[in-house]
């Protein structure tokens, strides 16, 4: 299958200006290359500061890479001008770890979902509403909640709303940046199931950024391990778990707490 997204030798360098002396340079992404096939999930794992979120921002066209190519549907986004990027951004949506801080607290749930359609000037008023309601249903939020403010939602419901909002514009790729980390374990499972369902019913493509190797292994077809801005390992999920090649992967694996449930139903005293 042709990849929907191809990243080639992507470099992102930040420079910190200092009062005295030359500016300090920091290499956040060091020649990163990989491909993402449509309808699959790719997980990017790594310690804090390994460059995961910088990579997400570059792919979502929120940061301009210093050098390298970013092929999306045959076009190289790295060379696009701002006006052209505006047309691309709706197709690559990003979901943040804390949805509460990315929503207007005074807006109703419906307003939040309709907003992207209004901004992009798509559909008439009535169609927008219909689309919003069908999306809310798809992510498991009931229509009678639509008029309530988003602040009344629980953490899991808010993350559902964030997913509904990201889906309004029919994105080709959904980037989930630590989208489950702030949630309770039982809620994580609910949202993970929602993602799996969206993928099997609508063929969504996910880029799943996390430091939770267990969840990455469960959801993703392939895993990329990053360390100090470089990709140190890239393989199918099962292979990464079975024989990790790089020290950073082994460290991440060692940090996964070992814990397994004895079989048997709950009712046995």
């Amino acid at each position: 299958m042709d990849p929907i997204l191809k990243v080639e030798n992507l470099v992102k360098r930040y420079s910190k200006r200092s009062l005295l002396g030359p500016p300090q340079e920091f290499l956040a992404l060091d020649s990163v290359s990989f491909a993402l096939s449509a309808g699959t999930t790719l997980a990017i794992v790594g310690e804090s500061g390994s460059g995961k979120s910088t990579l997400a921002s570059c792919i979502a066209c929120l940061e301009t890479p210093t050098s390298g190519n970013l092929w999306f549907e045959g076009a190289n986004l790295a060379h696009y001008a701002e006006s052209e990027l505006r047309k691309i951004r709706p197709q690559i949506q990003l979901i943040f770890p804390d949805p509460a801080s990315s929503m207007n607290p005074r807006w109703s749930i419906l307003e939040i979902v309709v907003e992207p359609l209004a901004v992009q000037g798509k559909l008439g008023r009535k169609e927008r509403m219909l689309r919003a309601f069908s999306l809310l249903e798809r992510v498991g939020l009931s229509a009678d909640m639509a008029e309530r403010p988003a602040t009344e939602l629980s953490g899991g419901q808010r993350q559902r709303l964030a997913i509904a909002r990201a889906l309004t514009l029919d994105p080709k790729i959904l980037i989930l940046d630590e989208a489950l980390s702030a949630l309770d374990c039982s809620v994580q499972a609910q949202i993970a199931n929602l993602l799996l369902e969206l993928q099997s019913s609508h063929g969504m493509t996910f880029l799943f950024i996390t430091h939770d190797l267990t969840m990455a292994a469960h959801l993703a077809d392939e895993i990329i391990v990053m360390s100090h801005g470089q990709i140190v390992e890239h393989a199918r999920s099962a292979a990464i778990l079975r024989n990790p090649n790089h020290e950073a992967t082994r460290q991440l694996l060692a940090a996964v707490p070992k814990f397994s449930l004895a079989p048997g139903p709950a009712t046995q005293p």
Partner: protein
Amino acid sequence: MESFLEVQNLQVSYRSHEHRSRPVLSGVSFGLMPGEILGVLGESGSGKSTLAASILRLLPPNGHIGNGAVFFEGKNLLQAPSEALRNIRGGRVSLIFQEPSLALHPTIRVGEQVRRVLASHQSLSRNELSERTRNVFIQLFPQDTDRILRSYPHQLSGGQRQRALIAQAIACYPAIVIADEPTAALDPVTQLEILGVFRALREQLSLAMIFITHNPALLSGFADRILVLYAGQVAEWGPAESVLRSPKHPYTRALFESLPGISTEMEKSHKTLLPVIPGNSSPASLPRKGCSFEPRCSVRMDVCKEFEPVLVDLGKKHVVSCFKYKE
């Protein structure tokens, strides 16, 4: 062995804007043994942070302790005069908060922040204070001790900041450290490192710990006993090994089953739907009577709708609050 911190029938509620009072903890009882690590497991809204705060009476102004007692070294902390309580807080019992970047003062060097804790609890000379501070830092930062003493919080990494907070908590050699999600903001490798620090300190200082978390996997191999909270009540309390391996309460079991696992049979479960607990535990969705987990429970019975279960002793120090079990 006798428990030396005893929480009895603790009831805490919060007043909301409309003068309604919402119960957060209803009748929580447990004990802590000397040198024991008690893992308190609960999801958001289960009352786990309220439990930490009410032991030291550090509730926000709208929090109200309705009933109960917290016995420590022969005193009921809930009735102790505030002068006595001030000596206990940070001295005998200390608290570590979730967000290390918020708990440290941003414009005071971390060494100074630890020194001030010592100074407020013990009357020591300047030289003694500096030496004690340095000794505490040596325990947590064997390398680079002096550089870190002189650092400001923003110059430290997340893990180092958490270590600095731990230094503050253990400066006066307390008997108990209460840690509220101390590793939630850290990545897994740093998380593991901080758990190691706690384990080492427990050995060196014979500390007892109340370790509050929402992540059951963190407690495995770390906690001695586990207390599971659901909707402000004790669902289950027992030895860590048996709670983690064969949880008795339907909530605990369903929670553990919803975690994706890394195992040899991973390929079979890979990308399959996880078994989830239906519904949520928000205050609005809790039942008015009966067992608070009943609406979400897969093995509920008629009796669960009508009556509240009491704690049943299963032997081997394992208690569970469920009608499925009889003494």
